[in-house]
């Protein structure tokens, strides 16, 4: 006999609303329906009522974790419409901010995953590490969440002494290697909670069009930093971690390895940061009529912005945002089918979902 179990609209792990209607037989999930839209804010429409300065502040609030990525993508699109190219130092600062944000996002996710597995001390360890990353973000930008770093033609603030950040990177990497990664990769409990659970096959990952660590954990080596480099990524050497298994453990391993790669990128960006201006200094950029599109590899995967503007208009004519969770979340259906009911919170959390992004 099958029965329906509604999960949500309050997520068991993440304090954001969405709903999963699971059809179960015994303890096994046999089908799922996902419902979103509980937090729809109409941000794309609001963007049409904001000028080029205000729209940056607005889009920074699409997501509470990868706020910087949203302004970076938006600014890259608006730079195409204004013909402004950020100076090299600004491109490096953008890489530093993006990778710090990736660290902060991945370590936060690792903490939540640890909590769902029953490792509450690991949750605290991860959040302590995350605090260190946020301290650096705060030292650079003056803010812990919405950094207000990006502007059309560069960044708003310089990193005056890039090398001073290196000890933090070393410490974070040491802690990850010493505590977090070994527990996630070798602990029997972590393995039994994650291995073979919530599998998204390579074929399903392709047909669902998933992005970011979720795709890379199903054997898809896609990463825009490598495939279509932006900012200063073309000058960075790094690997794109890929795991073939498609289970929760693979998603965990990909993120753990990406933390190490982010440290590698940060070290290069901070060491090689060129001197010079950090923005073009344009008082008021002049927009041409047209549509421009930019894509960036956010911590959860690809973000895409399409921005349309009419010359001499105060506000954009259209801003369309495609967030990574919008692409990844429908795949949860295929991860959850066949799973044990008790594993579903961890499976859902394993894509690092952001409902704020999804609902926009």
């Amino acid at each position, binding site marked *: 006999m099958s029965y329906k179990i509604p999960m949500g609209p309050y997520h068991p792990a993440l304090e954001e609303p969405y709903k999963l209607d699971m059809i179960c037989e015994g303890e096994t999930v046999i089908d799922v*329906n996902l*419902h*979103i*839209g509980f937090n*729809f804010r*109409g941000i794309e*429409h*609001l963007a*049409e*009522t*904001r*000028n080029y300065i*205000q729209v940056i502040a607005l889009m920074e609030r699409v997501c509470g974790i990868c706020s910087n990525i949203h302004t970076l993508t938006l600014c*890259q*699109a608006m730079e*195409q*419409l204004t013909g402004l190219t950020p100076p090299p130092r600004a491109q490096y600062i953008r890489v530093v901010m993006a990778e710090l944000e990736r660290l902060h996002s991945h370590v936060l996710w690792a903490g939540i995953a640890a909590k769902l597995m029953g490792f509450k001390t690991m949750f605290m360890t991860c959040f302590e590490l995350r605090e260190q990353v946020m301290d650096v973000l705060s030292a650079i930008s003056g803010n812990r969440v919405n950094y207000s770093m990006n502007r059309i033609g560069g960044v708003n603030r310089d990193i005056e002494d890039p090398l001073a950040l290196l000890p933090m990177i070393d410490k974070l990497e040491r802690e990850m290697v010493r505590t977090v990664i070994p527990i996630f990769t070798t602990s029997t409990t972590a393995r039994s909670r994650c291995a073979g659970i919530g599998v998204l096959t390579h074929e399903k990952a*392709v*047909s*669902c*069009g998933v992005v970011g660590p979720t795709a890379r954990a199903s054997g898809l080596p*896609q990463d*825009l930093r*490598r*495939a*279509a480099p932006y900012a200063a990524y073309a000058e960075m050497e790094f690997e794109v971690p890929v795991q073939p298994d498609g289970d929760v453990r693979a998603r965990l391993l990909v993120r753990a390895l990406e933390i190490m790669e982010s440290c590698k990128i940060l070290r290069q960006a901070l060491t090689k940061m060129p001197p010079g201006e950090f923005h073009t200094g344009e008082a008021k950029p002049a927009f041409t009529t*047209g*549509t*421009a*599109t*930019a*894509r960036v590899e956010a911590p959860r995967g*690809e973000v*895409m912005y*399409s921005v*349309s503007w009419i010359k001499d208009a105060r*506000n954009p004519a*259209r801003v*369309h945002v*495609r967030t990574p969770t*919008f*692409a990844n*979340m*429908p795949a949860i259906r295929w991860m959850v089918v066949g799973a044990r009911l008790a594993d579903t919170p961890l499976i859902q959390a394993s894509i690092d979902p952001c409902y704020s992004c999804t609902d926009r």
Partner: protein
Amino acid sequence: MTVLESIPEKLGVDAPWVEKGGVHWLNPSPLSVRELAQAMNALHARFITITAYQLPKEEGLRLEYHWDLDGQLLGFPFQLAGNSIESIYDLCEAVDWIEREIHEGFAVDFLGRKYEPLLLREGDTPGVNLRETGTPNKPASGLLGQEEVK
């Protein structure tokens, strides 16, 4: 000849690629959106999204379909005569939510598919068209007009 350069010929399209605003654009006429989706599947291109544009009244709507091919962003515009276009959901699973969102936000009917209950709810009517119901300084029922920030 690169894969990208060979696509117009494979599709039977006369127009060349135009690279503009970070996108390789191709006018897919005379292909239907379903023929285009089949061609993109054959090329193993990754579907990204559809962007809907509400044009001035007499011009209707424009949908721009985007795929990724080895890091290159492809764009294919489709002008809608009315408010409907064929769905490609059965050919490309990844379009599910964006077709639903455009159906609900712009009242576009994607023919040949069923919809889940509305995501963006305003009663039971599809087409929560914020551009009409929430036009600046023109409050409409159910939604407060968004005052343009001076």
